[in-house]
């Protein structure tokens, strides 16, 4: 299940939705929220590339399913204006064994960070700046190559 949306999502309900397969005993999730290190962030606006986003996320899911035996994958990513504490992204994976569920969940987050066409703009008061990509995200993604 892939959703790119402005609406909020219920991470707990998404996790519980993954816990319904007696053949697969392992569910890993990652949830990302808007972080405010300095306590001065007013808002975060996520821009994306409609069409390409869905295509890239589907390609990521397909790739994860080729690499690991997964019985379910959920990817939710929001765009638009968010405030500190708001949920941004949810990735959930279900497999028979925990190592596969964990690896696929980390892989999806690492590749999502470097391949999905989203851009974050931070707003501090009336000053707005585009977030720069981090070299550490490229490094994290490279380990799956």
């Amino acid at each position, binding site marked *: 299940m892939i959703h790119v949306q402005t609406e909020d999502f219920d991470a707990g309900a998404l996790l519980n939705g993954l816990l319904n397969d007696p053949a697969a005993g392992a569910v890993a999730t990652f949830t990302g929220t808007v972080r405010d290190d300095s306590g001065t962030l007013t808002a975060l606006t996520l821009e994306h*590339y409609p069409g*390409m986003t869905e295509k890239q996320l589907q390609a990521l899911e397909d790739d994860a399913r080729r690499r690991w035996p997964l019985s379910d994958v959920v990817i939710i990513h929001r765009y638009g204006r968010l405030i500190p504490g708001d949920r*941004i992204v949810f990735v959930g994976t279900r497999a028979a064994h925990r190592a596969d569920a964990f690896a696929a969940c980390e892989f999806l987050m690492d590749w999502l*960070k470097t391949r999905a066409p989203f*851009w*974050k703009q931070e707003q501090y008061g009336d000053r707005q700046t585009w977030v720069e990509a981090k070299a550490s995200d490229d490094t994290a993604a490279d380990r799956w190559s």
Partner: protein
Amino acid sequence: MDLFYFAWLREKVGTGSEQRTLPADITTVAALVEWLKTQSPGHAAAFADPALVRVAVNQDHAGLDAIVTDRDEVAFFPPVTGG
């Protein structure tokens, strides 16, 4: 050709999308970038440092050496920062 710009490239170009007829002698992304730089001061500013720009052709990540035709959808944007 459908062109898209995102994030600060959109702001510098001054629009998120435009349609242009690709000159016949332009067949790569690199040549397209050089040509776009001549189209307006905004385009010139957006592409001033090509090392900062990423490209997608028909919604797939591509390099500067990718082949483009007038029927393609080409997008320019900074490195992605989602997740």
